[in-house]
């Protein structure tokens, strides 16, 4: 138990003392995750909305694929992206392996189905009615789209927050494609994994506390938004 207590003490010192490496890693993690979430939002929201609204052949199969992809094993995603980006891979000439770009790609592959799936689900349940109501009130196509997005704003926010939460807590895929290189591709989760294996519990716990705080803040924001904007 002593080593755990010592670990917590060291963690507090690193956090309160604004340890440069720790905070650089925190900032880099959040930046990478925000970027990949943004790309996922740009891809996921239109796909989620359109596929939720429209009736098309194989919609059932499509929904099963999306729901399956929401639970993609991260290391498998990491492996697939690494196979594509490695020197011998089809995109090896781009030299993206072990770069932040590769990490963003891997995170985007993981997060996009989560955003699509959440939005698809909500749009399937409520979207058609919302779209029709705006049409019957005389809205043009752009106005209907804005109306739909506005009415589904809580669902969209939850999807985006879930996506970001997934991205920032990801370790498997980004360890493979990023390599956890100090000062270059090291993020909070890979830092925790590395320091834990080295027995540096103080550093791991410090980063773990920060990750928990981020999760807590995210959930608190989501709850406040949902509460003030009843579904």
């Amino acid at each position, binding site marked *: 138990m002593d080593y755990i207590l010592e670990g917590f003490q060291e963690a507090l010192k690193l956090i309160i003392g604004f340890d440069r490496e720790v905070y650089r890693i925190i900032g880099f993690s959040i930046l990478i995750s925000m970027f990949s979430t943004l790309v996922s939002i740009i891809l996921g929201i239109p796909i989620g909305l359109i596929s939720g609204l429209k009736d098309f052949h194989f919609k059932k199969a499509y929904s099963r694929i999306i729901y399956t992809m929401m639970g993609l094993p991260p290391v498998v995603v990491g492996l697939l992206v690494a196979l594509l980006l490695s020197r011998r891979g089809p995109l090896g000439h781009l030299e993206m392996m072990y770069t932040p770009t590769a990490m963003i790609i891997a995170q985007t592959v993981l997060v996009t189905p989560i955003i699509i799936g959440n939005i698809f689900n909500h749009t399937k349940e409520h979207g058609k009615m919302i779209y029709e109501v705006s049409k019957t*009130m*005389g809205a043009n196509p752009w106005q209907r789209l804005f109306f739909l997005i506005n009415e589904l704003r809580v669902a969209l926010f939850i999807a985006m927050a879930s996506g970001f939460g997934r991205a920032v807590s990801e370790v498997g895929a980004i360890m493979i494609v990023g390599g956890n290189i100090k000062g270059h591709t090291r993020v909070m989760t890979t830092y925790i994994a590395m320091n834990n294996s080295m027995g540096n519990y103080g550093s791991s716990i410090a980063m773990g506390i920060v990750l928990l705080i981020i999760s807590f803040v995210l959930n608190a924001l989501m709850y406040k938004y949902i509460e003030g904007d009843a579904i």
Partner: protein
Amino acid sequence: MNVMIGQLTKKYKDHLILDNITIQLKAGGFYGFKGSNGAGKSTLFRIIAGLERPTCGTVTYDGEKLNSTILKRITYMHQKPYMMKTSVEENILYPLKIRGLGYEIYRQKVKDIMFELDLYKLRTQLATQLSGGEMQKVALARALIFEPEILLMDEPTAHVDKQTVQAIETMLLKRKCQDHMMTAVITHDEDQLVNLFEQVIQVENHCVFYV
């Protein structure tokens, strides 16, 4: 606006809903539609409102096909109306906003309609938290605020109290006299069908009959 429905057929995959129906709904008319569940009444209304397309046949509005201008002159009330996640007043204002019509110009009109339907005291309340009857009244106010030429209502008085039924009927009759709005209402209420409407149309076995 006169609505002419010519040889209209509607199928969902292989399931026949409406079979080669032809009817005319005149401007200013007051029509009650009845029929058993699943007869195709709602589908017919949805086609007139531009929410669905017929499998074949035509629907014309004063001789023209449906376009964005005509669409702005029609309104359709769902059986269970959707309330925007905002106040009652904002719900009623929405059709005016999307037409670029200023609240200041229509302030009195919005106020009048809220008083008529006993909604004024609820104007700042979140519309999603209203009772079923109150939601129906908000939906009606929202449908009427921009003075449509065609009003289609799908069972507006089902599942609401007598007071709300009376309020809705009074409002509709008043608008009929004042605005010459063509109104078509789906209802199972035999009293309404007998006492309220100029013409009752029955939808049965995929066809329509004037009663």
